[in-house]
């Protein structure tokens, strides 16, 4: 693959590779899959997982004889630090390859701006990145983006599910809270901030008192003590941190436990990242987080366990979110290709992807034609609430998928 890429740089090599492609075509067709992933820079770990997930699926499919006369091949475009120019460079490099008629990613840029580039070329594009950004781009004119689909469901549930879940725990007696006060904190990025503001509204509507709703600058945060000092004074029974960086979350837990209050602690997203557990070890026990579009790893969804096991078997470590996501993305494309039969008919492929309805690792996938996001809900992609206990993530909501009951965190006893 890389030899062929290098061929671009010399005419002779170009000719040679053209010849070899022609020769290969006589036997079987190749459908190349462009994967946009940060292979270098701070997010390289995510990028590697994305590529691993895609390769896993591709090898399986190829081993099974391919799809509709096509064998698959993964071509990686490095988005580096997700800056606009490097993402565009990666996109253009992939788009320039005429055998690439689909692209996918966990996330490529901070803003998902590349969706527009995809739409211009009618490039089928499957993305698992921030659904709010994706929706903002697509929802005003969904017909302009016939080939772009997000397997991340709408993030609305992050804002709406929390209050009912807590209420349910209270009603069921699994949780006792001394008051109806909540302290919120977020860092200044659209994802965390939107969720915090949504939560604030939902809590207030449900008659809770929001004792604080602080905003911190986005990035590495080493000192949560100013916020925690306020918390100790107001003594809210729920503390919610919507910043999503695992390092920050680990620091947050450490500093919270220096002088804990009897409060339920919820942290957005970060606890799902493997290194959060490595960093916090037993200090994480009792923390609650939730997940939309993550792996729904429960006996009720055997697909998830299957994907996770395969990944582990091949790469030796458990995947986070992006390995299974890309694995599933490849299969979405494979299904669509099987239906259409021609990898170059991009619009048809895009349409076929949009019509998907299947069980995937994250739940049941179907797309909302208005936003091109995966549909969210208990019978679609559910929001999952987890509690960390002794280094394990226990799913306790929704009840039908639950692996364990919610327990009162150790510091509240």
């Amino acid at each position: 693959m890389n030899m062929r890429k290098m061929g671009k740089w010399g005419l002779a090599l170009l000719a040679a590779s053209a010849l070899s492609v022609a020769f290969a075509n006589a036997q079987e067709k190749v459908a190349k899959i462009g994967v946009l992933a940060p292979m270098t820079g701070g997010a390289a770990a995510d990028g590697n997982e994305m590529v691993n997930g895609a390769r896993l699926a591709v090898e399986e499919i190829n081993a099974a004889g391919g799809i509709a006369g096509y064998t698959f091949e993964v071509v990686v475009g490095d988005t580096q630090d997700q800056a606009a120019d490097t993402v565009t460079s990666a996109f253009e490099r992939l788009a320039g390859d005429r055998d690439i008629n689909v692209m996918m990613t966990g996330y490529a840029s901070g803003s998902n701006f590349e969706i527009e580039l995809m739409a211009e070329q009618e490039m089928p594009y499957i993305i698992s990145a921030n659904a709010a950004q994706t929706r903002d781009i697509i929802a005003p004119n969904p017909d302009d983006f016939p080939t772009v689909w997000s397997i991340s469901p709408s993030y609305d549930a992050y804002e709406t599910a929390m209050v009912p879940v807590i209420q349910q725990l209270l009603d069921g007696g699994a949780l006792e809270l001394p008051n109806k006060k909540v302290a919120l904190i977020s860092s200044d990025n659209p994802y965390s901030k939107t969720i915090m503001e949504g939560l604030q509204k939902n809590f207030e509507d449900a008659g809770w008192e929001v004792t604080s709703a602080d905003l911190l600058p986005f990035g590495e945060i080493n000192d949560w003590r100013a916020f925690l000092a306020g918390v100790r004074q107001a003594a809210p029974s729920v503390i919610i941190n919507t910043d999503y960086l695992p390092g920050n979350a680990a620091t947050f837990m450490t500093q919270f436990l220096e002088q804990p209050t009897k409060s339920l602690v919820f942290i957005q997203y970060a606890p799902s990242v493997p290194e959060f557990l490595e960093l916090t070890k037993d200090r994480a026990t009792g923390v609650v987080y939730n997940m939309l579009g993550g792996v729904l790893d429960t006996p009720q969804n055997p697909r998830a366990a299957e994907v996770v096991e395969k990944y582990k078997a091949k790469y030796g470590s458990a995947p986070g979110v992006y390995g299974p996501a890309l694995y599933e993305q490849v299969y979405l494309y494979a299904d669509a290709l099987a239906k259409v039969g021609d990898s170059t008919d991009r619009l048809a492929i895009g349409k076929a992807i949009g019509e998907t309805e299947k069980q995937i690792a994250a739940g049941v996938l179907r797309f909302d034609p208005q936003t091109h996001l995966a549909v969210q809900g208990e019978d679609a992609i559910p929001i999952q609430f987890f509690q960390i206990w002794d280094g394990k993530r226990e799913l306790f909501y929704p009840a039908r998928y639950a692996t364990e009951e919610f327990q009162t965190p150790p510091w509240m006893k």
Partner: protein
Amino acid sequence: MPASFNLKTLAIAAVLILGLLVPVVIEDTYIRHLFIIAFIYAIVAASWDLSLGYAGVFNFGHVAFFGVGVYTTALCAKLLGIDPWIAMLLGGAAASAAAAIVALPVVRLQGIYVVLVTFAFSQLVLQFVISQSQITGGTQGLVRVPTIELFGYNFLRDYKFGYYYVAFALLVISTLCLRYITRTDFGLSIRALRDNEDYSLARGIPIGLQRLKVLMASAFFAGIAGGFFAIYLRVASPEVFNFSTMALILSMVLVGGTSSIYGPVIAALVLTFISEGLANVNGLSEGRFMLVAVAMVLVLLFFPKGLISIIDRWPRGRGARRPD
């Protein structure tokens, strides 16, 4: 003089024609895109050379000026609905204005302090951009920036044919302007200032004013380049302030050769293509930055006047370093 002048004119004409022919010969959108990016970086690097190389102002906030251009243009075009062409000019103007602010402390300071203050300034701009997330989109940036149009020509679906020429034209114009500036009396005075501050004062050259002017001029081109960057990619995101962006462009100035304008332009092209080429070689995707770093040191060690000194031998530029 006349012989070398003719040769030079010939070489420049050849380069111009080659540049004009590139998109005709190369149909690959990816290669065209790399050229466009290289051209943008070339403008930033060459304009940096004006303040860093010619005027000797240790300005480490140049990439921030570029970023100011990116955001001003994006905001003007998107939120205020200003025509993107004009927004690009406004980007340049805003960068100049930012430079004027930096100049306030910088004209009074020397050496390492200038490095540190300009560096601190760029951090301040970044913080400002991120903090105003209601307007700038904060860390996620600003998407769907409107793009340019010329007599109804649509730049979006021509495989970057039009963008290439716009970028090329911007590069040619800014290079000409920069070369012109260095040859004016003003250009002479800033080189004089770099050589010897006290002596410049003794010859009636106002240090503060010239520094202010040179910072504003060099920021203007960086701002325009930033404006085009935003228009071309249709996104403004805070990564433009990244340290790696600064390091990359700085290495272009150095490797190319300070006080030459052409040097950084050539280096921008070479480094963009080499670094992109290495990015696609297995195992070098991360290591290429290390290679660029090593190259930077090697060039400083063995070609202190930059790679341009291999090509051009006429006595100019940082040359004539006195043996003291």
